[in-house]
């Protein structure tokens, strides 16, 4: 039986879907008042630069969510991307520190990243493991490999290309920001403006619907895992540039922020679903909050708690909004 939803209930649903954004806006206002210097152009640039790795992994994550569906457990999710990022960074750092040549370093790191992506694809799309479980296990395994590669040490990198990514500017805008913006636009076009992108999203929205018109949802999901690994690889460069080298332990925070930003991003979408665009905005918001709290002098340990709580809030609101629609 079809029922028209009463306008009041619809307004409430809209509000529930929007709530995470309101919470974030409130926090930003709070930070703006507490730390007056926060809202300046300089901070904006800083937020953008600091957020580049998160923006990239969020792009990867949102591709997988779009292809696999929004169910947090059974749908598309790839927690291993941050691990891929640090592995790529670790391999690059190790190889560059040994003067092994930039191109070879890139090929090795790319190969390793795509291997992770292909393994994820095989585990989830062919064997049928739950993506949450498969990619979490993968995260642990890949971090372990990275610790072996780097011997859990910090490795400084002063290769000119990495320094260029960190310091150079074109027309007053940091080169890193421009690179990520270009990549983001390309990914946006691929996912939201091409047949391939729509087919990928169709599989995430309804496997049966996609297969009825002859699309293979599994094949698209497998491709999504590979694309996610690719974004993880690219993010590796920006992790190196941001930290002037590879250091152990970056992956945990990156994963927390990735999950938070991607699902937060759904609140920006008019359809209330994870989109690439929303994920990028979400990543920037999360970056702003992090830097804001740091500039207020909030303890780092508290930050972890705050972010964890925010993830739960965002996901809970998403679940509520979905239940309202059903």
């Amino acid at each position, binding site marked *: 039986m*079809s029922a*028209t939803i009463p306008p009041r209930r619809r307004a409430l649903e809209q509000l529930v879907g929007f709530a995470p954004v309101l919470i974030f806006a409130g926090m930003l206002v709070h930070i703006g008042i507490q730390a007056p210097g926060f809202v300046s152009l300089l901070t904006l640039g800083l937020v953008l630069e600091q957020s580049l790795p998160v923006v990239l992994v969020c792009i990867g994550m949102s591709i997988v969510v779009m292809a696999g569906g929004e169910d947090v457990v059974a749908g598309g999710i790839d927690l291993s991307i941050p691990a891929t990022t640090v592995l790529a960074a670790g391999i690059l750092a190790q190889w560059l520190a040994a003067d092994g040549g930039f191109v070879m370093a890139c090929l090795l790191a790319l190969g390793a990243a795509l291997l992770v992506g292909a393994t994820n694809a095989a585990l989830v799309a062919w064997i049928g493991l739950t993506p949450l479980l498969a990619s979490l296990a993968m995260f642990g395994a890949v971090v372990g490999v990275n610790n072996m590669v780097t011997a859990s040490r910090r490795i400084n990198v002063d290769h000119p290309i990495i320094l260029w990514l960190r310091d150079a500017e074109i027309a007053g805008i940091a080169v890193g920001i421009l690179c990520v913006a270009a990549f983001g636009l390309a990914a946006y*076009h691929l996912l939201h403006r*091409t047949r391939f992108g729509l087919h990928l999203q169709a599989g995430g929205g309804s496997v049966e*619907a*996609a297969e009825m018109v002859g699309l293979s949802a599994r094949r698209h999901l497998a491709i999504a895992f590979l694309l996610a690994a690719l974004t993880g690889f690219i993010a590796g460069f920006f992790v190196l540039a941001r930290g002037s080298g590879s250091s152990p332990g970056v992956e945990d925070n990156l994963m927390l922020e990735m999950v938070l930003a991607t699902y937060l991003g759904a609140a920006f979408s008019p*359809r209330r679903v994870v989109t690439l665009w929303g994920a990028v905005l979400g990543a920037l918001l999360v970056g702003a909050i992090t830097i804001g709290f740091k500039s207020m002098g909030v303890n780092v340990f508290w930050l972890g708690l705050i972010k964890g709580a925010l993830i739960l809030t965002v996901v809970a609101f998403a679940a509520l909004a979905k239940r309202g629609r059903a």
Partner: protein
Amino acid sequence: MTEAALSLQEIVKTFPGVRALDSASLTLQPSEIHGLVGENGAGKSTIIKVLAGIYTPDSGQLRIAGQHIHPITPASVHDAGIRFIHQELHLVPHFTVAEAIFMGQELAGPFGLRKGQMRHRAEEFLHDRLGVTIHGNRLVRDLGTAERKLVQIARALIDGQAKVVVFDEPTAPLASAEVKTLMDAIFRLKQQEITILYVSHYLNEIMGICDRVTVFRNGRNVAVFDDVDDALGPKMISAMVGRDLDDIYPARTRSFAETVMTLDKLTGPGFEDVSLSLRKGEILGVAGLIGSGREELVDTLYGLARAKGGTLHLHGKRARIRTPSDAIAQGVVLVPRDRRNDGLVLPMTVGENITLATLDEDATFGVENRAHARTRAARKVSELDIRPANTGAIVRFLSGGNQQKVVLARWLARDADIFVLDEPTVGVDIGARAEIYSVVNRLAQDGAGVLVSSSDPGELIGLCDRILVMLRGRVVAELDPARQSMDDLIALSTGATNAPQGQEVPV
């Protein structure tokens, strides 16, 4: 006669142990709306699946506009211009109408998708070909059921290559008011020289829309009616039924005591204003097609869905059932339609399944008294003649009938006095059915009130004391099985005859 738009000739399809199609034929003339009717299991779905290339027939042939199609595959029938509007919508909820319609055949140029053009073409198609106005940017999940159905139709036809369209139970999920919108759209298609095969349980729709009707029974076409007139309803029904009542039902020697359950204008998801009363010792039947609200009513009585209005009284007291444990606590138990998923824990033994609902009674301070539980289970196994007569047998390996007896045995072990049985014999062979009917009869004789919800008209007529007929969410009639026949029941539940609400229909 002109060349047939589509003809299936002498199709045979067997499955292990079953001859699903026994030399069945079906012929559609160009630009007609052709109805296909038959009871569950008559072979309608099988022949549709053969036509769709999902099942490969053992023998027989398919011709489309005179051209022999071989082999019959999803691709070959698609290329020949046959389109299917399946019962399930298969749409992506967060896609726009335009994206959903063009899914898999998107319009794209060198710079990516042509979204504006897709929207425009989708709206134009919906308006010009189906006669409805739906904005191409609305999300599928915000549409009503009828609108979604129209989007599904548009998706199947947007490439302009369709010659024959097969509608499989298109109105099942729709409310009465929405049916007309869909009918209008189908009429429009006919005017555009598209041939339509219309499969439905709703005989009133068949009579209202079709030019000719083929009736299937036992895997073959038993009748084709060329004239759609007032006499068609009874003619179709007798062709569909074509058999006498099976002699597997217990004699009605029950006596009724006080009322145990009363519903007053109960309203819930999928049904409205349902009033009924159930007495001790009575077997009350509820009939209705899929989508009639019958299943939802059962779910609501057991707390699997929430009532939105009206009242429920149990044992004379106002009651609320929000969860299955509420229901059980008030003496209401359910034997679910999907017993393999909802009724049983398949990897567990017969004994464990039987005592699942009575664990607390067999336990001392939370520790299960195994010996006690085993004796109790063994008693039920012999009472109900569950085979194998072994409480240690794994339920998964039992036959459908014996599995159903295990579910019944579980509730018999408890002191429940209102039994709700949902499709109690679906997938059960005829011998086991007779045994299940005798268990149900004994339940009533022992003083329980039994509500049987079923899609099998023979079962309801044979077993029940009274039958309520539901159609599109409402109770439309009450039937007396002693005076009325299976034909009456089918006529009422398919909407072929109308009965004033709440009144008995004259024989």
